[in-house]
């Protein structure tokens, strides 16, 4: 008993000691493909406004379901427009979602023998092609559109393996179980993965833009204006530069 009381007080001490000096003000739920760019954006945002942010990274579908069930997120950055639109229709957001960037699609390989290109997909060395599940992941939908628009889908269907998210797609490609795969440009440009393997940007004319949408939830709507300040910041020139660095493009 004594020991338990001791460890409880120790735990309390640890918790108190670790408490940040300023409280986290803003909770931002963000789609996985955006995770690399967003940390840099948030850093810039906090430097400028002194508003602390907490990042929740997940797939857009999971985050949407969580918001529907009342998850405490202030801002939602989705990798498509469909899910935030649903939230708006349900009356859970302050306004309809707005596109702040378009994601780029690339072919990525870790193999030395393969030169990433659409023609290489039919190569016999390519046994598996990884892509995100088109039913649930926006980049997966874009990948399928590329294959269909180039009439490659039916020839390659046997080689396609579906990942549940863009992160898992990266897993399949980086471990080499799939020789090549479709992923987000932001992934191959991220500091962690830069220079690993080879990649090729795919022409955006073959797929609908992978629109990155932002919405503000109605949680704590009247608390303060920090969600709105983040919303404004992401459309600023400063954020735009960071997004471009990670391979995103803006609608002009």
């Amino acid at each position: 008993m004594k020991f338990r009381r001791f460890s409880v007080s120790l735990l309390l001490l640890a918790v108190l000691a670790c408490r940040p000096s300023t409280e986290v003000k803003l909770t931002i739920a963000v789609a996985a493909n955006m995770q690399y760019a967003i940390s840099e954006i948030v850093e810039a945002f906090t430097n400028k406004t002194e508003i602390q942010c907490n990042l929740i990274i997940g797939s857009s579908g999971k985050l949407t379901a969580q918001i529907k069930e009342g998850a405490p997120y202030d801002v939602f950055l989705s990798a498509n427009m469909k899910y935030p639109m649903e939230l708006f229709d349900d009356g859970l957001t302050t306004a309809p979602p707005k596109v702040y960037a378009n994601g780029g699609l690339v072919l990525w390989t870790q193999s030395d023998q393969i030169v990433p290109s659409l023609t290489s997909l039919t190569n016999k060395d390519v046994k598996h092609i990884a892509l995100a599940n088109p039913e649930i992941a926006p980049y997966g939908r874009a990948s399928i559109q590329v294959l269909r628009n180039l009439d490659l889908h039916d020839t390659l269907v046997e080689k396609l393996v579906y990942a549940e998210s863009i992160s898992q797609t990266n897993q399949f490609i980086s471990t080499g179980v799939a020789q090549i795969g479709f992923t987000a440009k932001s992934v191959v440009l991220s500091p962690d993965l830069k220079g690993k393997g080879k990649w090729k940007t795919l022409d955006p004319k073959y797929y609908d833009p992978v629109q990155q949408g932002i919405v503000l939830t109605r949680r704590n709507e009247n608390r303060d204006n920090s969600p709105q300040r983040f919303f404004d910041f992401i459309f600023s020139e400063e954020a735009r530069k960071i997004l471009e660095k990670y391979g995103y493009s803006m609608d002009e």
Partner: protein
Amino acid sequence: MNWDPLILTFKLALVTTALLFLVSLPLAYWLTYTKSKFKPIAETLVSMPLVLPPTVLGFYFLIAFSPNNFFGNWLDQTFGIQLVFSFWGLVLASMIYSLPFMVHPLQSGLSGLPNSLKEASYVMGKSRFQTLVKVLLPNIKSSLLTGIVLAFAHTIGEFGVVLMIGGSIPGSTKVASIAIYEEVEALNYTAANTYSLVLFAITFGILLLVYLSNGGYLKRFLK
């Protein structure tokens, strides 16, 4: 309603359970009777899937099955077998994942039998194999049933490992648990619900049947 994922799930569970039984029986037999000093190591290894998160197993399978690595490459070059993203890869992974659920009941069943049963059979001229089949197995029927059903049920409920190495290929690796997950992700709650209910009903039926028969209720019921 697409029935393929459900059919695939039961096919996977059936094949896995059958092969796992063939592997686990000699293993459980060895673990029960061996005096080897490697026994504790073997027992620990068999139990590892109980404590390891499925993601750890999935991760190692992914690495092992990758053609970039020795094992995956050797399988591919020698036998032309590619385990990743294939039904047989899932079978192998499920067998390892469900191994303790089959081995433990068999082992505890066998070690619960008095040694003299085995010895009486030897003295009467029966070989080890004859003894196993004619004396030991008939006396651990409920352990056999428990092992088979647990392994079957555990394979049906498998998700993490399949998610990591399956690739969700319709008809080959897209099992029910994956299909349900994807429907939930796509916010198609109705479809997810249908799959889940069917899975629930069938597994409930199987387990109930086992509990009834193990408790002797089935016999009374049929009379």
